[in-house]
């Protein structure tokens, strides 16, 4: 456990991307940052910039237009990175799974590390998902880079 490895777990910066979500999960994801849940306690900061982020939090099912944006965003995040699919739609497509414009879950486009189901996923579940992602990051030492 080097100092860089410890720091990685202590300071996950998040970028939040909304595919074609109904905004239910987005509001829950943003609720994590409010004084009630205050994820900055754990060093989690919401960055607007993929180049500064470590964890990509994705809500909503992927459609044909957001797929290339999502790929682009994923490519811009420097390694090591984690992807969390938040909400049933992001996990599997949810109620939109057989729409003509929907590809399905986020894992059709980018590799997903943690799935957080729920409609909408509660803030506690989202925080739990980030913690799971960090545990995965802790085990993947020397592999991710």
């Amino acid at each position, binding site marked *: 456990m080097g*100092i*860089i*490895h*410890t*720091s*990685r777990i*202590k*300071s996950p*910066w998040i970028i939040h991307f909304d595919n074609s979500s109904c905004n239910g999960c987005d509001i829950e994801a943003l609720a994590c940052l409010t*004084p009630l849940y*205050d994820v*900055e*306690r*754990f*060093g989690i900061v*919401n*960055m*607007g*910039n993929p*180049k*500064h982020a*470590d964890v990509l939090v994705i809500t909503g099912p992927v459609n044909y237009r957001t797929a290339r944006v999502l790929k682009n965003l994923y490519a*811009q995040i*420097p*390694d*090591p990175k984690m992807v969390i699919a938040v909400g049933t739609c992001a996990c599997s497509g949810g109620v939109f799974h057989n729409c003509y414009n929907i590809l399905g879950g986020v894992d059709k486009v980018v590799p997903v590390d943690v799935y957080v189901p729920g409609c909408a996923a509660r803030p506690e579940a989202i925080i739990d998902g980030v913690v799971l992602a960090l545990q995965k990051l802790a085990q993947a030492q020397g592999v991710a*880079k």
Partner: protein
Amino acid sequence: MNQLWVAIIAIIVAPIIGGFLAGIDRKITARLQGRWGPPIVQPFYDFFKLLGKSRIATSRMQFVWIYGYLVFMIASLVFLVLKLDILLLVFLLGFAGISFVLGGFSSKSPYSHFGANRELLQILSYEPVLLLMALGIYAQNGSFMISEILKPSSEPLLASLWPIFIALLVILTIKLRKSPFDIATSHHAHQELVKGIMTEYSGPYYALIQLTEWYEIVLLLGIIALFWANPLWIGILIALAAFILELFIDNIAARMTAGWMVRFSWAIGLVLCILNIAYLYLMKGV
């Protein structure tokens, strides 16, 4: 040889102090917003994490300029701790700012260009006031040397230069990129300009920017401490009080526009500085 050791110790200790100040900043900000806030060592976690990220280059020149930003900032800090010329310190600080701007301009990202343009406006706002501060110190002491300010026989600068001190507090807000002047990089307005001038820096290079900012905090608070140079601990207390004041201003103020910043800093800062220097020259016949 003694001076060399002082410089080396300052270069090592300054970022540690700066990092803790940044941590206190985040903690107090969180408490003012009714949150618990991250631990005080959080900026160090962020720093080391960024060092361990992969390097993504958008342009080679921007890395040259970011090293320039760091080196010139360290150089001006060395000028402060070795008690050298305050006018040259201001010039070095100015060149550090220009390096940062050139780094922002050297990638093609429009957000980076936006931020760099706004950073130029920030330099336009604070540079004249810093120069006039050096002039004011010259008018009071008859010398630009910091060692002259720190001489045990000299009286505190704050007594005669208090308008310049008020102008310097405005400049401190601009330099620390706090609200209402956080227009070039924006901690919170991601929708408007992503991360402004810092958008294209990632991983270890973003860590370098944070390191430079820590040096900058220590340097600016050191300059403020000079206003009550003996005993110096009063000056340091004044500097810390100024820092806490900045945090309060940051939390109660909204972001303002770049044009407003230039008008405000020139209308308040420049006028206060010029009046102060004119008073010193006319009344005291320096």
